[in-house]
């Protein structure tokens, strides 16, 4: 194994650069080193001006998503040795405005997330003194997968629909809406329906499945979207056929 590997890193400094330029750095190629370790090596030893986000370095905080050799990845969970002998191309996540170097602006997602009401909605909220809402392990399994989203934005970066139409609510937000819709304790599905069935909601999705392929936590947002399409379609038929009281 060579003892070095080249990282080709996208640089963009607003006010200085008119468009991103690639800059090459040599970093040690070591077992267990993630792409992120290569980037922190650059920052600490070679070039303090390189900007990127990172925090937990254990694949759970969702900060360090970037495009690695063309694919959206958590850089703390993607390893240099898997790209040897290199070079490895590291760019910001696609489909987001670039703030600086590898830092993207996720403000759009942060604004969309509350619109799907990703919180517990109850007709009547029982007092805490009455104890927990019962939920069997099987009921927990119904939504558990969709509760694993770490908001890392890899799915938005992979989504061809979001690339063309930034008004699309998008995979993670829809999966989180479904996380509550499918929770046996929640009664807010009707409150989330308008946004989910709007033109920017589930029907915008063409079921390419790139979101689920990119997801590092196996949330499978594509399945969440498909499942809600079925729910919405069934509901539409019911609404058409049945008198109001029987829905």
């Amino acid at each position, binding site marked *: 194994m060579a003892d070095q590997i080249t990282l080709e890193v996208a640089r963009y400094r607003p006010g200085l650069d008119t468009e991103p330029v690639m800059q090459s750095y040599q970093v040690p190629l070591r077992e267990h080193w993630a792409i992120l370790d290569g980037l922190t090596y650059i920052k600490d030893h070679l070039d303090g001006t390189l900007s990127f986000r990172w925090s937990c370095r254990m694949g759970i905080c969702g900060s360090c998503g970037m495009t690695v050799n063309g694919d959206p990845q958590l850089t703390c969970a993607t390893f240099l040795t898997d790209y040897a002998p290199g070079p490895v191309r590291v760019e910001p996540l696609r489909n987001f405005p670039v703030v600086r170097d590898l830092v993207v602006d996720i403000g759009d997602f942060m604004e969309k997330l509350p619109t799907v009401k990703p919180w517990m909605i109850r007709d009547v909220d*029982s007092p805490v003194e009455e104890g*927990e809402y019962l939920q069997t392990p099987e009921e927990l399994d119904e939504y558990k997968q969709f509760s694993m989203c770490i908001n890392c934005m890899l799915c938005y970066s992979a989504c061809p629909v979001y690339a063309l139409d930034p008004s699309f609510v998008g995979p993670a937000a829809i999966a989180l809406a479904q996380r509550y819709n499918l929770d046996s304790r929640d009664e807010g599905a009707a409150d989330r329906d308008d946004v989910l069935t709007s033109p920017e909601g589930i029907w915008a999705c063409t079921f390419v499945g790139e979101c689920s392929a990119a997801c590092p936590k196996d949330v499978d947002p594509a399945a969440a979207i498909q499942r809600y399409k079925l729910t919405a379609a069934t509901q539409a038929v019911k609404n058409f056929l049945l008198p109001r009281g029987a829905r």
Partner: protein
Amino acid sequence: MSAFHDVLVIGGGGAGLRAAIAVAETNPRLRVAIVSKVYPMRSHTVSAEGGAAGVAADDDSLDEHAYDTVSGSDWLCDQDAVEAFVAEAPRELLRLEHWGCPWSRQPDGHTAVRAFGGMKKKRTWFAADRTGFHMLHTLFQTVLSFPDVVRYDEWYVTKLLVDNGRTYGVVAIELATGRTETITASAVIVCTGGCGRVYPFTTNANIKTGDGMALAYRAGAPLKDMEFVQYHPTGLPFTGILITEAARAEGGWLLNKDGYRYLQDYDLGIPEPTPVMRSMELGPRDRLSQAFVHEFDKGRTIDTPYGPIVHLDLRHLGAELIDAKLPFVRELCSQYQNIDPVTELVPVRPVVHYMMGGIHTDIHGATPIQGLYAAGEVACVSINGANRLGSNSLPECLVFGTRAGRAAAVFAGQYGGAIPPAILAQGRDEEDRLERELTRHAEGRERIADIRTEMQTAMENGAGIYRDGDSLAKAADELQELRLRFADAAVDDHSRTFNTELVALLELSFMLDVAESIITCALQREESRGAHQRTDFPARDDEGYLAHSLVYREPDRHGRRVQYLPVTITRWPPGERVYGR
């Protein structure tokens, strides 16, 4: 420019989010804001794995949870605070359940509890082994349902504004633009978490740089019990990634190089095939990490390129249990260590995990500075004393986040009003200082990373699992020298847009303050208690030191002053810590 909020929360993790909700619930008319250097869902609460303690089972009692916590703390906690904590923890965990937290369940639908280190009964609620992740996202998503809670995401607080013993807000930098702003408030709650990054090998995320501790310390508040640094016994060797105590609670064993369950040699009980509460692998973290050092001294650890290790054996638990209860452990081992714990031994070694000390607060989260509150790891109430029990920190965020939020809401409701001109002047001064830092350090010659690395090494060598007067004095000298070199640190990045090098500089400056407070308190405490083990003073000394250290910064001459505050004892007089017998 300046904005005003009634209550400003610094930090968007478990304690900060819970505090913000508590303010909104206590007084919906109050304007609440959360300022955080990362988006709230990136906060380090996300990394907590094993669970959150709160009495739930019929065979358990509040007194037993309190006793476990008090004895776990080596009697350095305040027992009134512990009694309040154990009484309120179950309600807070239920509250979170009502907000949607996906707690693991029993077959009948009730929430499940698991065993944990130092706990005599099963009382640790869990969401598989991603408890912190689920708690944080539940809290964050619940905060989204309060549209009036304002957020300053990715803003970095550089100074607390204090006039005449009262706080009126902060100065912060918006990272995206580099803009500095004075944000005023009637009350401020510091919830910025711990400071594990002052050490070289830690489970803590990159953001855990002790910012809030240093902010309060510089503003004149004392830091309490800073010499008590928790080493978790089981971190992965290169990364320091935490392998949760739940792995041992579910039945995992710690083995030395001979395959021997070595904890039996350290007065922690006799090995049984299945877990025994408060025994062996379910002993407290301080004692387990100390046992590792003794095994190393005896030549019974295993050398690796990343230091000596022992093994965590989960193989006998089987794939089904591991996938159901410890799926994240399996994922982390596979991803970061290339091993499968179902069939292979997991290499582990002690790793800096948690700061028992922090900003001195009372039982309501109030600091000695009027209007300033603190909660979570950044604070020291103290329920953790000389050693925190696993799974007490998550409920601590909830219980004392709520308490601080309520107290701050009441204070802000009573004492709102005009911001003194001196505060706005201080804000302008701080904004000018930040400008100057960029210019001044543009010519610097020292790399930030070099100073940071040497600080971390000094701390590990000087104030590790075992320390003595000489090692601490040497660390104090090294820190003094690093402070001089810091003045010449280089910031090559002159951009205002997302300047992470400037943030690294400011973080390092905070860490140097926190590191010095740790060394100062450790030097003064001439006894061994919990996580503070002085080889030159190996015994606990209740006559001299059954008291909290309070370290004050003496701003005139970079000096520090330590005084002691007696521990509050209600029902459990100091006794022997007994595990496994």
